[in-house]
């Protein structure tokens, strides 16, 4: 389990990183918690790795009235430690603290997790539910894409070859909104078998069902309830009876949590 040969560059800036990643066969390396094992298993064999998690521009975080923006290379551990801007109740810290193990959290990054687009990853579901935006930078400038559009499928994003994800911008949940997040996992560190996140603000509701083997399901407003979930899961291919059942259970529990708990 050793990687195939590759080159490694450590650019001095985001601009340099963007330039380096353009050629075919190049991949961005952040915390390496998913890419590392994939390299070792030779599932991926990039010619060039462009390391980015040392760049201070990607570790910055800012807060405004409307939103919190976290640099793509902020680690889960940093978020979990509660030293960054967060929402009421330490919403982001709680999510980050439930990701994998401490060793993974120490190196794994929010941007890396999102870019890897594992269907069972916490941020993929949670950031979709929170209506976050992915901030994508290329030589031509910056664009913002809702996370629900950024994630295109299992391990697939809409990131262009000339772009890198530099930050995620998470809008502040409305003052009276309720929040629920439940994942079915037997032990810490295990990938979830089912997950659901709910953000409820009166009639404005967002319900996300994750770990379904592909892009998470986003249900909004009137659809964001048990009936909507049932209909959406029935229309989702590849889910057997047990999987659908587990997903509906976590949806139910996330909705209950959101009804009882302010975001």
């Amino acid at each position, binding site marked *: *389990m050793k990687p195939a040969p590759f080159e490694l560059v450590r650019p001095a800036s985001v601009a340099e990183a963007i330039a380096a990643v353009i050629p075919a066969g190049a991949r961005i390396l952040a915390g390496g918690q998913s890419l590392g094992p994939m390299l070792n298993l030779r599932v991926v064999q990039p010619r060039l790795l462009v390391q980015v998690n040392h760049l201070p521009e990607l570790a910055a975080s800012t807060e405004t009235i409307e939103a919190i923006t976290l640099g793509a290379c902020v680690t889960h551990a940093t978020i979990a430690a509660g030293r960054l801007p967060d929402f009421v109740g330490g919403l982001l810290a709680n999510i980050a603290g439930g990701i994998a193990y401490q060793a993974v959290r120490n190196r794994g990054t929010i941007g890396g997790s999102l870019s890897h687009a594992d269907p069972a990853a916490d941020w993929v579901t949670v950031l979709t539910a929170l209506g976050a935006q992915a901030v994508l930078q290329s030589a031509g400038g910056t664009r913002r894409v809702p996370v629900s559009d950024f994630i295109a499928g299992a391990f697939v994003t809409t990131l262009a070859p000339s772009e890198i994800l530099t930050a995620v911008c998470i809008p502040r949940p409305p003052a009276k909104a309720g929040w629920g997040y439940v994942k079915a996992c*037997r032990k810490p560190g295990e990938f979830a*078998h089912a997950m659901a996140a709910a953000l409820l603000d009166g009639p404005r509701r967002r319900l996300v069902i994750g770990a379904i083997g592909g892009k998470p399901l986003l249900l909004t407003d009137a659809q964001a309830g048990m009936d909507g979930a049932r209909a959406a899961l029935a229309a989702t291919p590849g889910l057997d009876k047990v999987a659908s059942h587990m997903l509906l259970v976590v949806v139910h529990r996330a909705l209950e949590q959101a009804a009882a708990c302010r975001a």
Partner: protein
Amino acid sequence: MDGHGIGQPVPRVEDDRLMRGRGEFIADIRLAGMRDLAFVRSPLAHARIRAVRKPAGAEGGVFVAGDLAGVQPIVANSALPGFKTSVQPILAHDKVRYVGEPIAVCVADNRAAAEDLAAAVEVDFEELPPIVDMRAALTTPIRVHEHWPDNVFLETFVSIAAERLADPAPIVVRRRLRTARQCMSPMEGRGVVATWDRRMEQLLVYTSTQLPHIVRNGLAGCLGLDQARIRVVAPDVGGGFGYKGILLAEEVCAGYLARHLGHPVRWIEDRREQLVGNANCREHDYDVTVHAEADGTLIGIDAEAVVDAGAYSAYPFSACLEAAQVASILPGPYVMPAYRCRTFSAATNKPPILPYRGVARAGVCFALEVMLDAVARQGGLDPVEVRLRNLVPAEAMPFDNITGKHFDSGDYPACLRRAVAAIDVPAVRRRQVEATGVHRIGLGFSVFCEQAAHGTSVYAGWGIPMVPGFEQAVARMTPDGGLELRVGIQSHGQGLETTLAQVAHEILGVPLAAIRVVHGDTAMTPYSTGTWGSRCMVMAGGAVAAACTELAERIAAIGAHLLQAAVDQVQVGRGIVVGPHGEVPIADVARTWYLRPQDLPDGVAPGGLEVTAGYKPTRDSGTFSYAAHAVVVEVDTELGDVRILDYAICEDGGRLINPMIVDGQVVGGVAQGIGTALYEEMPYDAFGQPGAATLADYSLPGATEVPIVRIDHMETLSPLSFFGQKGIGEGGAIGPPAAIANAVNDALAPLGVELTELPITPRRILTALLARQS
């Protein structure tokens, strides 16, 4: 004594180096000029090899079967009638029989480069239909080994008073039960460093093994070398559990290459190799019918068991150890008048099955104990009462059971009662009645006995390549008064560097700090079959005691001279020789023998202060430790999660040499048993492809899944062993699958659901519940 003898919870002396990270494991060994090996392994479960093409320009670094001149395949036969021989090639040439089977070995400056080379080797396969399921193996026309008439390594049949099973019985319960194929997962995988010692003209093989002497036997046979030309050293070994009780094709390759390439080579197994191709164990399928009276008294058991033995018979334990043992131990610790059992060791296109802690017993205990709960449910009986009614009573000990197992001593019913008493059963039952919603409570028990240190007659009966005889130990004083103990077993986590020293200390009283246990090296230790079958404390402990007893006589002779007393007037112990008018330290005796021989009397015995002694228990049918496990679980009936709320064990290991180490053995075993019960499974698809290649896919219990285990000890001495000790190394892993399955079934009984397949995953629980609802 001074608190360091037997029965004392002495801190483990090896922990000083191990806990500080100062141990030396196989991957810590660095030799000048050493190069790394990587294996080309079969991506297919069953295929003919048409051709293997080495990468152009790199042919010298790639070795296929034809390059290993004179190397013999691995053959591990049993003498049991009807056993069929498998020939396991060191590198596959005509055919591959499982995913992960080695086809070629690549040598390079480092592992990454060796893997690059391995990736460039091309193999032309002609795919053959694989045999993946052990039941299908019994009926398919496809053959794992072409020249066999079927796919059965061995069929066994036991029938005792079986005519009674034809009579109608008040309670008849029949179930199909299944245990998963698991992967033993010691923290350290396997590994080999091999080098040719030119001065000694000897192949030196460092390998992460439990059985250095047996590996030497096997290597000598495969490599065609005299045994004196091979030295096998096991350095610090990071866990074995049976996974390292085997001769490896990789060891043979490394040995051959080290001898012929002129430089040391090493192979360090990675986790993918361990999971995909190497570490398989435990896959059983049972069809069991239990006949009982209305009060739960057992009439008999009628069973058929199949064990998926994989593609080859592993050396030295063979492909039949598991299934043949199923037939002899299925009756468990219970009395019954009738018994019939047929077993099959099925050959399939999967890696060879290997012995894993609690060989056959974890599956057998699961099958039998789940059946007893089913009997209790069908008869409206209390599961504890059913067990108490059938356990061998204390007054019947020693007891020869229906299959001829000789239970040496114990009080099985008392053990169960103590485990039950450790759980507040009425409180649990109250909570159970109240919890009628999503979360259900269940209580489960299991009882088993564990044959350990069984010896010559038992293994000669199986006729496998390895039969233990007398276990030997060397005890020798050093000139400074220290004591060296040399033993052929290997300590890989059991704390034998401590417990064997405690045994010597008990007899001679030499300070623990002055005792060194030397093990894991064929050049430095007497021959031994090694560490397996919970045998070390009985066998090596007995051998050390025997050697120290004889050494004490030699010490007494010299000590008597120094004390100017007659030999029969002196006693050796507590580190001194005591005579009628004074005493002399044993260290002075040693100093006199080695450094001041001029002070020795004429006619002193020339053997000096070095003794090799052999030991066997008074009969070799084994010690039987036993235990009762009691567990309370909570089942989330919506998500299928099982949470262990309480775990209590009552255990009888006879005289405990070091109770702290025993507790550690029990807790470690329970962790593995929880894995068997709830988490561990290597799934195979219809093509024989293993479904887990990393520990993200193969689920092991971690710290958060293992509860605090409460352990109560009974201490019924074995009449067979030196101090009355019994082997207890495996029991911790035997009881949990049965107890946990029973607890889950107890929780789900009101919902009309019973699980009989391991591991009990959320998916299995939900599948059963959803099927019941629809």
